[in-house]
């Protein structure tokens, strides 16, 4: 057995939460193993994304961790404990599980769905209902409004939020997520991904996340395992290093074109210097707005409310037709708004569609921080590229013979 590139072994500082040892799955009647002797360490508190083309065995690999699929051979070690032959029902109650089509129980209310695992573990009713409310709040759903509803009364995005809440039910140490945002429209998916990352920054679970979408992998993963047929690891590393130093041609092909665009997913709005824009507040008069606008290089001013939240874009045209209305009643509402946590890719997406070719950045309370325009993004891409090239060079210099291909 050739050595598998396993970057986690180099990070002895965090403890290993999940260790897969020589894990193999051979389905009856198939000549090839779906998963062939996979060895993988997953560190505590990290999101590890298993990504690869369809049929590479990534879902099978994930489902062997909670033994929805029983491994043919090999061992699964969860937090130091060999669980390969433990009672699977008890094992699964310790592992959160989120699947693509949500799998919510349609005949149970949202509250009952979320309460599934706590009830299985025999919590008393009071504790269960408190936990349900806590979890629904965590996924941005008002418990009073949604607790009593049925799944079919929710949109796809809301159903998946409930799916996540249900998986977190009894505060499991590990979560498995099988393309959780795959069946959701792109706009909602983006938002759910962001919400999930925020949630993860609070709960710090060890998460195994399966997707076939490399962009999602780059966005969500602390570490990415790119898998080839038979669940062989082509590269297991951080998103940054996978993008800048792909281990072999398979990885390079899988990342595909547009690696610099993908790198926009690696940087956040908070990492770059924001631009400024001319602003007035709703308390200001139309004259003030007019004079601000006429001395401005832009065709519109941004109107902030008294708390500093952007409320309107106002142009000279709007000011002419103001007819005694206040500034927040004219012009158009700002559409392109992101938080500092958003990736530069998010900012670019917003920018492309935005009216005044800028994305407005607000803090968590929605207060105006600054703007991002094309020049700033361009600058960010160029500086990342030069950093990447420098890193790649030092990489080769450091160990030029380290790229032995995994068979």
């Amino acid at each position: 057995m050739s050595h598998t590139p396993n970057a986690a072994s180099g990070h002895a500082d965090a403890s290993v939460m999940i260790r897969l040892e020589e894990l193999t799955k051979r389905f009856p009647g198939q000549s090839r193993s779906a998963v062939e002797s996979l060895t993988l360490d997953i560190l505590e508190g990290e999101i590890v994304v298993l990504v690869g083309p369809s049929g590479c065995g990534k879902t099978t690999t994930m489902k062997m961790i909670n033994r929805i699929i029983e491994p043919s051979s090999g061992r699964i070690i969860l937090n130091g404990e060999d669980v390969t032959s433990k009672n699977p029902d008890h094992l699964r109650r310790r592992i959160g599980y989120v699947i693509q089509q949500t799998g919510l129980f349609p005949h149970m209310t949202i509250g009952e769905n979320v309460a599934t695992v706590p009830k299985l573990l025999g919590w008393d009713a009071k504790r269960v209902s408190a936990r349900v409310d806590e979890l629904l709040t965590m996924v941005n759903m008002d418990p009073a409004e949604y607790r009593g509803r049925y799944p079919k009364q929710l949109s796809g995005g809301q159903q998946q939020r409930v799916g996540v809440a249900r998986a977190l039910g009894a505060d499991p140490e590990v979560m498995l997520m099988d393309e959780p945002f795959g069946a959701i429209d792109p706009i909602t998916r983006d938002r759910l991904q962001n919400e999930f990352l925020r949630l993860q920054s609070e709960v710090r679970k060890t998460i195994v996340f399966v997707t076939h979408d490399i962009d999602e992998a780059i966005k969500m993963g602390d570490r990415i395992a790119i898998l080839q047929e038979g669940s062989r690891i082509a590269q297991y590393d951080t998103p940054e290093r996978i993008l800048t130093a792909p281990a072999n041609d398979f990885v390079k092909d899988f990342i595909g074109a547009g690696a610099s665009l993908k790198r926009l997913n690696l940087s956040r709005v908070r990492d770059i210097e924001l631009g400024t824009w001319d602003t007035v507040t709703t308390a200001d008069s139309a004259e003030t707005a007019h004079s601000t606008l006429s001395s401005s290089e832009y065709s519109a001013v941004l109107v902030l409310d008294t708390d500093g939240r952007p409320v309107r874009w106002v142009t000279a045209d709007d000011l002419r037709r103001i007819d005694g209305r206040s500034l927040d009643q004219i012009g158009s509402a700002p559409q392109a708004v992101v938080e500092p946590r958003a990736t530069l890719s998010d900012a670019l997406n917003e920018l492309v569609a935005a009216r005044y070719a800028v994305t407005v950045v607000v803090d968590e309370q929605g207060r105006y921080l600054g703007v991002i325009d094309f020049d700033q993004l361009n600058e960010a891409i160029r500086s990342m590229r030069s950093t990447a090239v420098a890193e790649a060079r030092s990489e080769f210099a450091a160990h030029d013979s380290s790229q032995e291909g995994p068979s």
Partner: protein
Amino acid sequence: MSAPATAASTTDAEVVQTQSAPPRRSWPGYLTMPLILGLVCLGMFLYVQSRELDSIEARSLNARTILTALQGHVMLTAVSTLVTLVISVPLGVLLTRSFTRVIRPYIIGVLTVLQAVPTIAILVLLAVAFLFLGFQAAIVGLVLYAIIPVLLNTMVGLEQVDENVMEAGRGMGFSRWQVLTKLEVPLAVPVILAGVRTALVINVGTATLVTYIDAGGLGDIIVAGLSTNRILVQLIGAALTAVLALLVDYIAGIAEDLLRPKGL
């Protein structure tokens, strides 16, 4: 737009369907059927009253005979349906488990063949070959005939349960038994009930035949009319059977509405 994550869920751009499950049937809808059936019965009663009955007709068309026949018929239907349920639902559950995959087609084949044999033939067979007559023999005949719709509906009902729901259940740590009792069966209830409803109506109809093996029911009246060539008696017997079938179907419909799990 990737709006700030703090955007409250209530202001979601996502489509939120707030309407609850559609009302199953309106009140007038619930009342129409009993009203029509009541009127039909009243019409029959008035017509029979207005006629001068001869002694043969009077022997069948009196309250005592009719009520006895009706009561017998309801008993036959109720007991045979109950027995059918007790056999078919567990059998349906067994036949949808993976370990029975091999024998599944044979059992269904045998039952389908049994259903293809006319009930009357089964009844005659029981009577001639085993000298088995009366109420219990009637139940055997009726049950053999009604098993298939309930069994097939149970199986279809269990098989149409969303694979993802069951996988999620297993992933949460439900045991196989809990997956069956908490997810599969409740979610199959609407389809199973539809099968029960079919079986009930079939049983009301075929129960008219068991008069030939001396098991009572409304068949008594029809056959009395046939053998004495009294058309009115035949008609009343048949009409009462039809009214009973419609009434049973109506009640089963209400039961379906009430027993269907909420949220489906």
